[in-house]
């Protein structure tokens, strides 16, 4: 009996410690934005909204959030549309060596999009005259996300029975009708997953915009946040917390939406 009680206590101690480990760093994001004298530590704030005003008056803060939206929207649309088309046909038409190719691309993307290819990507974009182009940067981000997106979506499409499409075809549906009436509606949860995944990934991407967008008027929030930090040697603590909060809100909203609708689980997803 005491053994059982001790185990319960131990269990809750572990859970509490883990919860604190994950939660404590985030508290700053809740307190510092509204503190009249913001510092790096966590404390009960002297409530004020003056930081919010200061942030809105910053010359690049709002621009950079808009830039982030443009960049992410473009990258997300490109990734989702191209991945959906590719995943559908890869899932339905037998192509020899398909799985090996997908694995190789997936491996390559996890390597290359990191840092290994930053030099050639920089040089490539320089020569194409696409430095400071938001669309160009979105394409690079999209290209990096595509293999994983195709991989996840193909897995999803594989789980959709072919008999749905065959049934529609027997009843006389043309290819476009099969796609519009059956495939897209059935694949909606998978596509939603990819939209959210691509958006969150692109939203937090620092390296590529940092490399490819040198004009501060075109930089997204990810890059600007870094410049705020370095400005004049010391961090601007009246702007950074509010800005971080604003910058985080879209992904948190997306996360809440997804976990409410679909639950945050792997859709069959990565199998052994």
């Amino acid at each position, binding site marked *: 009996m005491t053994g059982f009680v001790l185990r319960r206590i131990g269990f809750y101690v572990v859970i509490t410690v883990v919860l604190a480990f994950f939660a404590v760093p985030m508290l700053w994001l809740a307190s510092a934005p509204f503190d009249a004298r913001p510092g790096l530590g966590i404390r009960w704030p002297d409530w004020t909204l003056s930081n919010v005003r200061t942030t809105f008056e910053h010359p690049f803060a709002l621009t950079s959030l808009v830039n982030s939206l443009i960049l992410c929207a473009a990258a997300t649309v490109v990734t989702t549309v191209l991945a959906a088309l590719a995943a559908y046909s890869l899932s339905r038409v*037998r192509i020899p060596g398909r799985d090996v190719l997908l694995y190789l691309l997936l491996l390559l993307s996890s390597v290359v999009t990191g840092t290994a290819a930053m030099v050639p990507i920089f040089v490539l974009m320089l020569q194409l005259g696409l430095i400071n182009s938001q669309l160009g940067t979105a394409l690079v981000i999209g290209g990096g996300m595509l293999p994983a997106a195709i991989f996840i979506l193909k897995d999803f499409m594989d789980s959709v*029975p072919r*008999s*749905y499409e*065959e*049934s*529609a*075809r*027997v*009843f*006389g*549906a*043309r290819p476009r*009708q099969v796609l519009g*009436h*059956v495939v897209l*509606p*059935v694949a*909606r949860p998978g596509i939603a997953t990819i939209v959210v995944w691509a958006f969150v990934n692109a939203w937090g991407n620092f390296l590529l915009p940092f490399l490819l967008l040198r004009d501060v008027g075109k930089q997204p929030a990810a890059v600007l946040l870094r410049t705020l930090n370095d400005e004049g040697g010391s961090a601007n603590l009246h702007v950074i917390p509010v800005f971080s909060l604003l910058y985080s809100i879209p992904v948190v909203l997306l996360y809440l939406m997804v976990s409410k609708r679909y639950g945050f689980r792997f859709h069959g997803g990565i199998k052994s």
Partner: protein
Amino acid sequence: MAAIDIAGVSTVYPNGVRAVDDLDLAVADGELFALLGPSGCGKTTLLRTIAGLEQASAGTVGIGALDVTRLPPGDRRVAMVFQDYALFPHMTVAENIAYPLRVRRASKAAQRDAAERMSGDLSLTGLLDRRPGQLSGGQQQRTALARAVAADADVLLLDEPLSNLDARLRLEARTFLKRLQRELALTTVFVTHDQAEALALADRIAVMDAGRIRQLGTPREVFQRPADMFVANFIGSTPMNLLPGTVVDGQVEFAGTRLPASGVPGEVTVGIRPEYLRIAPDGVLSGRVSIVENLGVTSLVTLDCGVPVGVVVPEHEEPAVGDELRVSPAPGRVLLYGEDGRLR
């Protein structure tokens, strides 16, 4: 309404598997026809070739007066019910049933009309606004049937229509399906691996193996006179007794007994269904009862006559294990198969 005419059809998959092999078949207008065989025998591929979901590599498929061999599925005037029913999960029952009309761009009113008419015919009233996921297995099956009937096609194709139902429901659905087909008088081809289902439902049965038809006939013909040992093994809920025997001087010797038989002398296999053996005091086969299996109103008794012989006996004649028993085959129900496995 239309007959189906299949001539010299082969269907070869890209990986080289010849699933249907140079097959001829004619299904009459309004007939309820069964394609029966073990899994991998090519029956489903044949059905899909009729539907146009697989392309025939050779031969022609005709429906009515039309050669449909090169036509896409939607232009063949066929309707199909898939094994998993393929009900679209994002549409209501009504939308599913009316889908063939939606494809043809019929008006919303016409679609709703058709859905309501079908739901009445197939006892789906009151379920029209549900999603397929909220239906029982039987209701799903009837929805899929309703959708196929709503397509107003010349030919109805059913892939294992009853296999996803549990045993009790299956009997009910079987009767329902037969009645529906009689009322519609729609040429219907269905695929099944369950011989009892084929016997109970079909006007005629094609027993298939390795992409070819082994026997084509009415349920009675197929049950009483299997054309070869493959069919003999496959048909019947209790396995047919297949006993080694020898033909000499107008008699066949097997299991320690002799019966008159014509034909050339030589090794044969004697086939007698357990249902065609009766207990008789002067029975030609005798042996000791080794196992008794209760089948409800009858029992399957295994006799040891040198080789094991199965006998189906009515409940009031059920023997005890260890009893000595004599049995006789019903007249004309002893089949002889030659060394090639064909009926002699």
